[in-house]
């Protein structure tokens, strides 16, 4: 069974078909790219997959379970995590706390346990800290654990978002322009990290990216979106040579 199966997914905003007839099947462990010019509907696809928007047509399945129509929280619990194009960290909280909130549904104790500082509070908090530091060290952020998230430099913020998403123990990770604003060196490093987490945590990754070097560097297959519909699909190198795709990117 495929990990993710999207069938004819679409959404209409006031008459505008932002995404229409989107189909995609992802196998476990795949690293898949979603590209397209600005406004092509890439982020909208992410919003549909994470329940921010309700699709007006079509459906999608995670591990065979129908997901469309579910709320973001349920989708997160089912195993889809994401990052955001315009970084959305918990700015007034520390880096460590950001990741610990990611662990919200992984390690639990009740409000009363927390208020009364019952033994379970201390044991769970200790496990949370260990797990969070472990995740942070993957992204070399463990040294910044006590820094406020909003005080981190841009590149680290992007990494922290991925670390936070990883904390929810997802099956499918959606990365929205993870390399935006990074220099080539940083991008290269990020590529390594993405591969690393895919292998280490047994992940399936769907990513949106404008940086073609990153896309062609790590994605096995890609889909090109244009005006909300699929323009091309297939192995990365082939698709990028497609004249239609080039036209869409460069204009006439």
């Amino acid at each position: 069974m495929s990990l993710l199966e999207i069938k004819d997914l679409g959404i209409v905003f006031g008459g505008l078909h932002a995404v229409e007839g989107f189909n995609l099947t992802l196998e476990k462990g795949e690293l898949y790219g979603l590209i397209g010019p600005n406004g092509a509907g890439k982020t909208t696809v992410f919003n549909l997959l994470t329940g921010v928007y309700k699709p007006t047509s079509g459906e999608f399945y995670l591990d065979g379970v129908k997901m469309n129509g579910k709320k973001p929280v349920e989708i997160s619990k089912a195993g889809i995590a994401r990052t955001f194009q315009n970084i959305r960290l918990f700015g007034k909280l520390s880096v460590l706390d950001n990741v610990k909130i990611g662990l919200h549904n992984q390690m639990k104790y009740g409000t009363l346990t927390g208020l009364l500082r019952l033994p379970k509070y201390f044991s769970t908090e200790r496990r949370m800290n260990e797990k969070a530091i472990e995740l942070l060290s993957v992204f070399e952020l463990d040294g910044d654990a006590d820094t406020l998230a909003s005080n981190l430099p841009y590149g680290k913020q992007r990494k922290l978002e991925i670390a936070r998403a990883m904390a929810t123990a997802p099956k499918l990770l959606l990365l929205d322009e993870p390399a935006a604003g990074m220099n080539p060196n940083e991008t290269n490093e990020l590529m390594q990290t993405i591969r690393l987490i895919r292998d280490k945590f047994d992940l399936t990754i769907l990513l949106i990216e404008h940086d073609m070097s990153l896309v062609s560097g790590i994605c096995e297959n890609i889909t090109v979106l244009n005006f909300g519909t699929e323009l091309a699909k297939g192995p990365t190198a082939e698709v990028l040579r497609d004249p239609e795709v080039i036209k869409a990117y460069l204009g006439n």
Partner: protein
Amino acid sequence: MAKKINSPLEKKSAGLRPVTKKNLVTLGIVTVFYVLFQTLSSLGVLKNAYQSLLVPICYSVIMAVSLNLVVGVLGELSIGHAGFMCVGAYCGAFFSVVTKNSFEIGWLRFLIAMIIGAVAAAIAGFLIGIPVLRLKGDYLAIVTLAFGEIIKSVVNVLYIGRDDAGFHIAMDSAKVGLQEGGVMILNGPQGITGTPRNSNFTVGFILVMLTLIIVTNLMDSRTGRAVMSLRDNRIAAESIGVNVTKYKLTAFVISAAIAGVAGVLYAHNLNALTANTNNFGYNMSIMILVYVVLGGLGSIRGSVIAAALLYSLPEIFRGVGQYRMLLYAIVLIVMMIVNNGAFFVQYKEKLKHRIRGGRKEAA
């Protein structure tokens, strides 16, 4: 490369974490304040005027800290917080007045009154929270204001009396229909009279400490982090599986319950309990908001200090007579501008840099 020895985790397990340390300092400040004034008061050197401020300061601090939980920690503007105080005050006072003669142990009765006040306010918070928390920003604020005013209006038309046949409730004093020898307990706008004077500075101090411990423990727990994540970025919080309604409601209800306790403290500090704009209406709600904002959103210590100082200011200003409230207004404006104004913020940053720079050079 070898792993760094000083990993943050190890550093944490070694000493107190900064959060814990900060909270302990706050508790310490409150304790010192308590010991100081309690000593002065038992020595008889504390002026009556200051003595009578001690309990009001306690409930103002409790109100400010509990509102900070909603405004600073949850990040939703509420201007109806006095409504919860009102619910707690009336329920607690009602219980105390009813059981005044039948309940022998004063402190136990007071404790039960506290619990009743807290539970009643929590229920009110829950009922109000469900619809209110669906809204955002100023709209949420106006609905909290509306609820506060509704609570106040309803309390003012409620008449409850007791006679041999039991309790009688009516919306009109003429319709209570008490038998001979019956007593009005809640008498519409005349409120509840004769609440036992159980509140004192020690009780107030214990409640302030409890409030601080509850709120700081909450903030440094899974629930508190979830609440703060909603404040910082609701969409991201949802995307990692934080249940928005549940945690908003949790924060709101806890805050309401604490406000209810403050209400009980208030009610048992005065012989006369009535609900008007200045004690349980929007004026009070706004006053508490002033404490919170001036103390710093999300800063618990700030709320404590601001509430204590601002409550005392008009009393301290009694010396200037008719200019009392005018001076208060000016101080309020000046403090807001000094604390938040662009010019002063820049100046403070510069000062900070200079001090740090100096330190580095010295080192």
